[in-house]
């Protein structure tokens, strides 16, 4: 093992040596520098591997041949090895990234870069307080020098602010250090830890000054204006250095020094961190400048990590894991993002859409954003997970809340940014010039991020290799992006087919519930993917996104532990977000989808934390929860209801579903929403309705479901946009489903299952059909369509059957749902909720008719006279579903009887009795097969009769109608479509007044206004920033003393 002291020796030796050759060729100098940094990296990495492999133990290097405290010593433990490796590797890659810039700026810049890096190493390694101070100053001064790689007046003034602030902070640190020396009689950190200097008041203050100085170096909110300016104006490579290198080192310092401080101060540290996490992320929301935004995010992440350190007493054995994973996430992501910022060279985040010209950059950007946010499969996901779990185990509800709020705020701006990248206008932006050396480093970091995620997951022992197979498959598809869409489509379908082959038979044997949902996910996936054959070209990004979503869905089903479930849940959310945002105008909708999903996911996370604290991490153990059961139940319900778009949490859905692509709409509507239902079911199954708290929540959910159904259906009736209509209809249908499951009786749940299957089938039919029609006629507005039955009869038939199934008209399966509802409602005693649901069911006719009438019937428009039937690739899946729905309607008992038996385990009272195709309850009976036969025969007879009577009817054209002696003017003026239910709107339209949207808008407005107000403390004046620092110290001092 090469001793850590050589890091210093190499760096300084090279630095001084280079100074020798003032006129040396910059290329050679830089090669030397890179070699030096490489050697430093090698030293730290070999130690890291040594530690990981258990070959070495914590090693202390003495200088000057004396033992501490008599001389300065450097400690190379596992943590130190890790952190220095991070710093040095970053330094190396950052050097690669800055190659051109450093060369341009000359030898001095190269030297400064290397020495600064060395300073950070020593900060990490040293065990001497004053030495720490000295090398902190080395790094600070070095960074101040590196800031000058850019020479704009803003950069220079921000460097000055940094210098002033850094000077003030180091002054306090120095006072603290010397006073600690006075009271402890030593500068050796281990000695200070053992000496009880906190016993005296002066000692306490000294420690306080030291601590607060370290914290201030981590840029706590609100005393961090000085650093933000630097983040914004410095060269992006240097901002990355500051964020990934310097902050990492400082965080380690805090970690290292923590044992010195009284244990009571941990709370203070945690609070300071928490405030920073929330505050910085809040202010980020208003930020438009990319680098400054990253600065806020950086401060926020450091706040989180500070909080983690402060909370270490709750985290026990997982403390290091949490700290390292979150730190790693921050480090990788922030460096990567700053590097990307340098490549993009656009300041405003809404100009980042030009990133889209390079798919690789988009992928990198996505990886970094998700890493930063703690999304699977990246390391910080596991860190955050464990953090929440441990906090929950410690009963720290407030902390869970704070961390989730902070994370959420972070997600707000990161996803806004992501939205700009994926969807923003990129016309008129300059050409993206990518220098090869600039792209290497981000690529490496993104790769490391993925690998680290896998490693972190396996450390937890939760994610086995099999869990990653789908992801690897997706990655493979991702690598095949250059292939045409149909090839990838085939691969994707084959993958889904394989998934079906491996999972479905097993599930059928073991777990009917999961089998049904898995069936819906996989079958739906294959069918909707099949429609994708329509698309020509490469369809970049579609297949990875779709498959991520399906992998997540499959993962939810297969998950056995809470972590696996949550992992898959987040995966699904991400995938679906990418899918949704592919639509033309879906940026804002995708954004609100993501926010609601994340908020929901966080609610789930919090609940899982509490579950984990009580009964361990198995999903099946949900039922064992004893304390806070109601709270957990409510949190889970809310979390899952964001996906099922229950009223209040639904505002993302209409836009997201309506603006998505034609084959994405059915994916997200018919399939994805079921994930929320599955989650609800797990909750209901797991936690049961026995306890009073849960049943009162279920009561509320029942009402909520009923009202959702009502409002959703009513709103659907007033839509002019066909897909939006279907989207609102989904809200309404999910309201039924929620209602059904909330009843928590066997009948209710049979009805619920029936609705789940049914909604899947008909919504897939309808969305595929309407989507295909939209593809043909190129408009969403129903009043611009009309008369299409003449051009697309097959589409019409499919839509008609879908609508019949939807509206619950016998003989199709929709009616079975109504029948079970009636029975369930009456047996359960939820009469009024039931009445609302039935009212909603009748309202469904309004939109059902509307979509059939205005799209397919009525007047064919000029432009559509030559449109073709919808594509075959759509027709095939549609008709498979149509046949499926017919069979299901006719032989409902094939599916429902097993479900009934399955549910008997949960509801032993068994009120439904199956006799062949006939279902009997204590209230009544119903025989789907016979109803179908009777109606079929009757229908055929009547039709025959009419055909016989009217065989010779003259076929006329669309304007041959009675028009009071006149003739119609144009198809447009003759098509009754716009504002179709005007009278109804007059009567009941007030129910659909967008109160909830307004509410959420107001909330958003309030938050951004608050951010806008608070961020005014950053006046831009360096002096004010210095004052903030001093005031921060004084205020905290008076708060803790």
């Amino acid at each position, binding site marked *: 093992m090469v001793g850590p002291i050589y890091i210093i020796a190499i760096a300084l*030796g090279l630095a001084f040596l280079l*100074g020798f050759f003032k006129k040396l060729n910059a290329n050679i100098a830089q090669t030397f520098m890179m070699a030096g940094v490489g050697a430093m990296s090698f030293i730290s990495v070999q130690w890291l591997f040594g530690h990981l492999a258990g070959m070495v133990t914590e090693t202390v290097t*003495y200088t000057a041949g004396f033992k501490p405290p008599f001389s300065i010593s450097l400690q190379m433990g596992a943590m130190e090895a890790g952190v220095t490796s991070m710093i040095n590797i970053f330094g190396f890659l950052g050097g690669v990234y800055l190659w051109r810039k450093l060369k341009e700026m000359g030898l001095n810049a190269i030297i400064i870069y290397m020495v600064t890096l060395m300073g950070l190493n*020593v900060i990490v390694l040293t065990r*001497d307080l004053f*030495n720490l101070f000295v090398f902190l100053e080395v790094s600070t001064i070095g960074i101040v020098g590196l800031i000058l790689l850019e020479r704009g007046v803003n950069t220079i003034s921000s460097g000055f602010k940094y210098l002033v602030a850094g000077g003030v902070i180091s002054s306090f640190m120095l006072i603290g250090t010397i006073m600690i020396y006075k009271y402890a009689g030593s500068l050796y950190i281990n000695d200070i830890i053992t000496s009880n200097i906190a016993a005296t*008041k002066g000692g306490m203050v000294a420690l306080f000054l030291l601590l607060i100085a370290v914290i201030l170096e981590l840029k706590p909110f609100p005393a961090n204006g000085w650093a933000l300016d630097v983040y914004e104006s410095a060269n992006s490579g240097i901002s990355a250095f500051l964020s990934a290198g310097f902050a990492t080192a400082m965080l380690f310092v805090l970690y290292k020094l923590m044992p010195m401080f009284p244990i009571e101060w941990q709370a203070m540290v945690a609070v300071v961190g928490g405030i920073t996490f929330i505050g910085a992320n809040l202010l980020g929301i208003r930020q438009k400048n990319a680098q400054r935004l990253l600065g806020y995010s950086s401060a926020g992440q450091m706040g989180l990590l500070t909080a983690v350190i402060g909370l270490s007493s709750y985290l026990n054995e997982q403390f290091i894991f949490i700290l390292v994973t979150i730190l790693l996430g921050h480090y990788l992501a922030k460096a990567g993002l700053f590097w990307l910022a340098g490549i993009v060279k656009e300041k405003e985040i809404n100009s980042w859409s030009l990133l889209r010209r390079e798919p690789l950059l988009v992928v990198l950007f996505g990886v970094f954003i998700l890493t930063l946010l703690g999304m699977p499969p990246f390391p910080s996901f596991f860190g955050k997970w464990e953090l929440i779990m441990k906090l929950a185990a410690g009963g720290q509800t407030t902390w869970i809340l704070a961390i989730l709020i902070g994370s959420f705020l972070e997600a707000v701006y990161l996803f806004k940014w992501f939205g700009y990248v994926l969807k923003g206008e990129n016309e008129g932006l300059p050409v993206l010039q990518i220098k090869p050396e600039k792209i290497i480093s981000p690529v490496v970091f993104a790769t490391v991020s993925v690998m680290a995620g896998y490693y972190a997951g396996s450390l937890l022992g939760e994610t086995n290799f099999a869990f990653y197979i789908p992801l690897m498959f997706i990655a493979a598809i991702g690598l095949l992006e250059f292939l045409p869409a149909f090839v990838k489509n085939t691969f994707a379908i084959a993958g889904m087919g394989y998934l079906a082959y491996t999972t479905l038979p097993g599930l059928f044997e073991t777990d009917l519930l999961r089998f049904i949902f898995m069936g819906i996910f996989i079958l739906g996936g294959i069918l909707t993917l099949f429609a994708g054959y329509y698309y020509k070209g490469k369809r970049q990004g579609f297949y990875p996104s779709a498959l991520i979503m399906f992998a997540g869905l499959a993962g939810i089903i297969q998950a056995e532990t809470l972590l696996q479930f949550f992992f898959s849940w987040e995966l699904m959310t991400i995938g679906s977000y990418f899918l949704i945002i592919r639509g033309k105008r879906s940026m804002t909708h995708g954004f609100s989808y993501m926010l609601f999903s994340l908020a929901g996911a966080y609610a789930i996370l919090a609940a899982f934390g509490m579950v984990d604290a009580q009964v361990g991490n198995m999903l099946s153990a949900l039922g064992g929860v004893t304390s806070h059961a109601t709270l957990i139940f409510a949190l889970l319900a809310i979390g899952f209801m964001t996906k099922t778009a229950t009223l209040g949490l639904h505002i993302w859905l209409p836009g997201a579903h309506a603006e998505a692509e034609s084959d994405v709409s059915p994916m997200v509507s018919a399939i994805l929403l079921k994930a929320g239902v599955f989650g609800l079911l797990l909750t209901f199954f797991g936690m049961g309705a026995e306890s009073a708290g849960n049943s009162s929540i279920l009561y509320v959910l029942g009402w909520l479901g009923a009202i959702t159904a009502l409002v959703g259906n009513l709103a659907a009736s007033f839509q002019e946009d066909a897909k939006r209509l279907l989207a609102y209809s989904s809200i309404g249908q999910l309201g039924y489903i929620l209602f059904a499951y909330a009843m928590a009786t066997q009948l209710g749940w049979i009805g619920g299952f029936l609705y789940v299957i049914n909604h899947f089938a008909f919504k897939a039919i309808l969305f595929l059909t309407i989507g295909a029609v939209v593809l043909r006629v190129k408009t969403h507005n129903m009043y611009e369509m009309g008369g299409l039955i003449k051009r697309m009869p097959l589409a019409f038939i499919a839509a008609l059957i879908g609508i019949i199934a939807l509206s619950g008209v016998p003989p199709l399966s929709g009616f079975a749902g109504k029948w079970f509802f009636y029975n369930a409602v009456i047996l359960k005693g939820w009469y009024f909720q039931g009445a609302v649901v039935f009212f909603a069911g009748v309202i469904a006719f309004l939109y059902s008719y509307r979509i059939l009438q205005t799209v397919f019937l009525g007047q064919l428009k000029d432009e559509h006279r030559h449109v073709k039937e919808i594509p075959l690739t759509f027709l095939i899946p549609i008709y498979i579903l149509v046949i499926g729905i017919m069979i299901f309607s006719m032989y409902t008992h094939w599916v429902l009887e097993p479900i009934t038996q399955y549910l008997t385990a949960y509801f032993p009272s068994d009120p439904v009795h199956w006799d062949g195709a006939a279902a009997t309850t204590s209230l009544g009976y119903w025989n789907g097969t016979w109803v179908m036969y009777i109606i079929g025969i009757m229908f055929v007879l009547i039709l025959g009769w009419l055909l016989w009577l009217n065989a010779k009817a003259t076929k006329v054209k669309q304007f041959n109608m009675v028009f009071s002696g006149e003739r119609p003017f144009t198809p447009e003026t003759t098509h009754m479509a716009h504002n179709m239910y005007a009278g109804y709107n007059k009567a009941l339209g007030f129910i659909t007044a967008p109160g909830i949207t307004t509410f959420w808008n107001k909330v958003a407005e309030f938050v951004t206004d608050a951010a806008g107000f608070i961020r005014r403390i950053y006046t831009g004046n360096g002096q004010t920033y210095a004052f903030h620092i*001093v005031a921060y110290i004084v*205020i905290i001092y008076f708060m803790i003393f």
Partner: protein
Amino acid sequence: MVKNLYIILVLVGLGFMFYTFADGFESADKLNPVAERYAKQGPDEVGAANLVTAVVVTYRGLDTLGEVTILFLSAAIVAFFLKVTYGEEEKRQTRSVSEIMQTAARLLTPAVFLLGIYVFINGHLTPGGGFQGGAIIASGLVLMLLAKPNMKVSHTLIHVVESISGLAFVFIGVLGILYAGGFLDNSLMGMGTLGSLLSAGVIPLIYIFVGLKVGAELSNIVAHLQESQNEA
């Protein structure tokens, strides 16, 4: 003005905080264990009569290295920052320097340099050392510059001195690892007799390099600051 009020308020609070240090502040009656060991063992272990030097160069040698690094960095940054644009110096208006000044400078500069060298060579024996000596040398340069504002300082010379001394410092440090107890171990060379010039192991050597280096760097900074005025 409200702002100033806040500042006063905060500073009063700070004063209050500081007061806890001052309140009941009493000097120690005796040295703390670390210092005591330095006092007792220092002369033997390090061989330097000046215990501060022993601490600075040997016991806390890494600090000193850092310190040198800081100066080096500062000099490098200033040099890198204040890039001189030659060729415009004609434009520069300098006040004429008085005769007395010029004469005195001519007379005193060598003496100042000599003093500086004396101070760092005797760093292990008397109060003083590399930094002090280096600073004195740099002040000599300042004197020269005051006398001759248009004087050009040879940056190459400065760099060579700086680099050689810096390298030597590090090299001695590394030798310490290889042949003695650790980085910057003093016992690389013989201890000599306490109080004589050639004692205290490598300390005089190090201090010579530190002195040269500090002198060179400070000169460098001063020269750059001076030259930067040429920049419009």
